[in-house]
């Protein structure tokens, strides 16, 4: 199954936020989107998953979702979005309960995703008892439980400290190596983009357009070792982004 954004444009009132975005997320591909603050990345991601309607253009699904996928397009949010009154296990069950799976199937899925995210010991813990990194792992476990075809992630690691971010990036690479999910990954952090993306789209300042697309064809599993090459790629992207970010910064300061 592929997810295609076909000439997406959007405005909030008189402010144009996005213009003419065309992106394809192929099977097993991680597509990263970077861009200056306020250029419409989060808005775009909401449109990809059908949480918001674009003013122009449309989002298309090509092909059928894989059999057994309960929620083909699944989000992972920056703020985790866990229910504070449910335990780790309860939060995962939440997204399965509406599917009438039967108690045994439910238990099997919950046990499986908890194990894959190494959370089995914490199944009874409440969110407030967990660190930020663990909360995001719960959110990842919850997303895996519905067997998504495409994951949409809006700055999933931004609320975390840099060590935790490193660890979770390794986890994501490991999960991807096993499941080959496709993903659209929005981030501010260029190191994350070159570490996880098969392709990086750089957006311009508002209204967001695709400024440039960088293909990275190094296998994900090797990237931790080949940091120097990635460093060069990251620098290249930063040079493209710098003027946009500067200009965007000035615009915001002007209050325009």
């Amino acid at each position, binding site marked *: 199954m592929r997810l295609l954004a076909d000439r997406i444009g959007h405005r909030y009132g008189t402010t144009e936020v996005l213009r003419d975005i065309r992106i394809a997320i192929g099977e097993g591909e991680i597509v990263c989107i970077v861009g200056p603050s306020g250029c419409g990345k989060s808005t775009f991601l909401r449109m990809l998953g059908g*949480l918001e309607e674009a003013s122009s253009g449309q989002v298309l699904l090509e092909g059928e979702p894989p059999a057994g996928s309960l929620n083909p397009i699944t989000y992972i949010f920056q703020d985790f979005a866990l229910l504070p009154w449910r335990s780790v296990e309860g939060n995962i069950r*939440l997204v399965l309960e509406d599917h009438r799976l039967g108690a045994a199937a439910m238990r099997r899925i919950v046990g499986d995703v908890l194990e894959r995210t190494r959370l089995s010991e914490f199944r009874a813990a409440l969110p407030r008892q967990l660190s930020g990194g663990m909360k995001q792992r719960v959110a990842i476990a919850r997303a895996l439980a*519905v067997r998504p075809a495409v994951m949409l992630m809006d700055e999933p690691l931004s609320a975390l400290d840099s060590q935790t971010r490193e660890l979770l990036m390794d986890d994501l690479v490991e999960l991807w190596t096993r499941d080959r999910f496709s993903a659209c990954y929005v981030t501010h952090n260029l190191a994350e983009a070159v570490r996880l993306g098969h392709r990086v789209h750089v957006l311009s300042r508002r209204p967001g357009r695709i400024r440039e697309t960088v293909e990275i064809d190094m296998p994900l599993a090797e990237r931790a070792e080949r940091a120097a090459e990635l460093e060069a790629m990251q620098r290249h992207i930063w040079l493209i982004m710098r003027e946009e970010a500067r200009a965007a910064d000035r615009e915001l300061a002007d209050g325009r």
Partner: protein
Amino acid sequence: MADDPAPGARVRPVPFRGGGFRPQTNSYVSLAVFIGLILLWEAGSRAGLISPIALPAPSQVLVALADLVRTGMLWKHLSVSLMRLGVGWVLGSILGILVGLLIGLFTIARAALLQLTSALFAVPKIALLPLFIVWFGIGESSKIATILFGSFFPTVIATYSGVDNVDRNLIRMAQSFGLSWGSIVRKIILPGALPAILSGLRISSAIAIVLLVAAEMIGAQFGIGAYILQAGSLFAIDQLIAGVTILAVLGLAISWVIGRAERRFLDWRS
């Protein structure tokens, strides 16, 4: 060592400036203050500092209370009061939560009811009692209606503002996982609004007690309010204070029950 203070230099600890602003309750202290006040009052009465006409000693109030128990009147007054309070407050709260949810969930309900609710919330319900007496007669219905109305509005307002304050991100998350509308309401909106609903119930219970006494003072033979009114008109201050004591205990009991509910259902809050 470099980490040690330089020899001869003046050294002093950094003064502690944090702490405070986190008042805690301590049941021993509250009990001690309570008992202390009663003892002081008793001592003042015995020493003749407090006139028995203005304020009888606690021991006399106790005698009045014991009289109430002995003659069986306590139960007579208390049972009708509890019935009125129970029916009025419970019905008012249930209806209030339902209407509050409607206002919180549906545009039509909000447009139709929000202003009306705010307008009626401000009306002192006791002013409506004569109207209710005309409608429902002098019997139980008019008293229950007053209590029901009085507890209905604060519950409506607490409930819909609780619903309004449920984290939108959680709702968006639920939608993104394809949860049904009913599941979102039951599993996200209701638990998310529960803290506000419970504190609304706390307020409405206090209002309900006030209205109970007021309604019983206007036209009732039995009930704590009626008992207090009779005591007042006979200048039986000891009985009057006994009645007030019963009300205070009633208020404490309700607040204790709600406190238990909060601890039971809101244990996920830090």
